[in-house]
């Protein structure tokens, strides 16, 4: 997993729960990196999983909700670091539906080894989109957070539902209805 996800995650934890929480979850986890994260590095996904689990244990907030909040924060990182990609879209449904065909293509150019989830569009019209998320990491809440922020970014609102196709969350169908 890219280092920026770890550094942004820990920044957010520090911001919301204080430096002690950061220290706590790092020392509670068995980290190969010892928690020495840098945005330009690459680290094992299991480290993120441990950090999330320990944060959940310590704060009594579910991992899903933690992921949701983290994703909302992470969207602002993307806006900050890749404004041109975001600016090339005029409409949230357009942007979300082209995650696979455009955004991930660009990601692969910079990080050829990145392991990305797949988003397959099932149905799409002006104010409706359904797509299937697939990833062994079962981080669909992270996706949900990014989607919510996307609508916010374009000053629109939407009702976003999802149905787990697989119970472990590795395959999830998103149903997005734009509210006009």
């Amino acid at each position, binding site marked *: 997993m890219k280092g920026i996800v770890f*550094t942004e995650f820990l920044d957010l934890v520090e911001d919301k729960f204080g*430096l*002690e929480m*950061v*220290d706590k979850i*790092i*020392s509670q986890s068995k980290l190969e990196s*010892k*928690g*020495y*994260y*840098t*945005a*330009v*590095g690459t680290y094992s996904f299991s480290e993120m999983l441990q950090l999330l689990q320990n944060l959940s244990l310590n704060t009594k907030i579910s991992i899903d909700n933690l992921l949701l909040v983290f994703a909302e924060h992470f969207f602002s990182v993307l806006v900050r670091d890749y404004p041109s990609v975001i600016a090339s879209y005029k409409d949230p449904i357009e942007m979300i539906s082209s995650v696979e065909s455009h955004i991930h293509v660009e990601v692969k150019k910079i990080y050829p080894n990145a392991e990305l989830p797949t988003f397959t569009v099932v149905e799409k019209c002006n104010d409706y989109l359904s797509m299937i998320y697939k990833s062994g990491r079962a981080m669909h809440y992270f996706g949900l957070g990014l989607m919510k922020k996307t609508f916010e970014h374009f000053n629109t609102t939407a009702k976003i539902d999802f149905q787990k196709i697989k119970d472990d969350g590795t395959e999830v169908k998103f149903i997005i209805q734009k509210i006009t």
Partner: protein
Amino acid sequence: MREEIEVLQRALERERFARKSAEKILEEKSRNLFTISRELKLTNLHLQQLLDEKSSVLEGIFENINDAYLVIDLQGNILKMNDIAENLFGYNLNEEQLNFTDLIYESDKEYTKNSFITLKEKGSLSNYTIRIVTKSNKIKWIQINASLLFDRNKKPKEAQGIVRDITAIKELELQKEKILHQLEKSNEELKEYAHIVSHDLKSPLRSINALISWIKHDNLDKFDENSLKNFELIEDTLSTMDNLISDILEYSSADADSSNQTKVDLNHLVLELKKVLYIPNHIAINIKNKLPNLVGDKIKFQQLFQNLISNSVKFIDKEKGIIDIDVQDKNTYYQFSVADNGIGIEEKYHKKIFKIFQTLNKNKESTGIGLSIVKKIVNLYQGDIWLESYPQKGTKFIFTLKK
């Protein structure tokens, strides 16, 4: 308080190690980038050299090619042309703009439009021939071979063409056609003329013949033997002249006429001829090998064998005359021969005898046209004729006919 300090110390330690690891990663990356950029520079240099080389080769072809070469955009505007093209069209691109369609001769414009569509669809065009008008208002025939040039996205961008000036060839072709037409016409006239002349010549001849025989009969008791002999000579001469005229007519009509092509059984044809022709009793005609079937004009085959057989009959001086007719299959053609044991022909005359009106013998039956008819017919069937002959021993005519 102490705990807080420890937390901060650990945070500081993480930051420090993170910074060091970031520095290490970045250093490695920049080293990689440096290596890659060095490789790219080398590759670029190599590509540049290759490009220069190819460009100079192309430039050389462009300037040294013997045909006109030009590049046009898809609207027909000429973007580039070599010296030969400039000379051909009479225009200089440095001085004026030029659209290829403006050069085209008015009545060829429609055809050009279609050809341009073909070029766009198929990507190339070969041997497309049109007329153009040069700057000095000269009309020239040109032949174009063209192909499309594509951009990086494989979209047609321009077209290049090699233009050959074929005005001279085209003029010769037209001239040839004209001459051929004239020749046909004059041949036709000649044939008609021969018909008229022979007809016109024959009727006074018949009148003379009639008058002579009346005079002879009316004065049989008054003329002496010498005069009667002279009358006989006059009659013979008239008959020779009549034959002569008939033969000329025959010769003039011995031309190719494709309308009478049938399969002809030559064996049967010769056997029939034997019955029809006057063959003295002391002469035997033998067919050595069965003659084949050939596609052609029956009348002409008849004329061919009739003339050769009569010729042999005419010149047999032996007590027992022999005429041998034979054939050999030579794959693409047949080789025939007609051999006799007659008086023979000296070698110095072997060529001459095929020419019209050439007769070696002042024989009253010989008009000197027969063999020239034979030669004409043989040539008509893409064959050849020659002879082997020894004086006193005999003559063998050999000829070929294409299958």
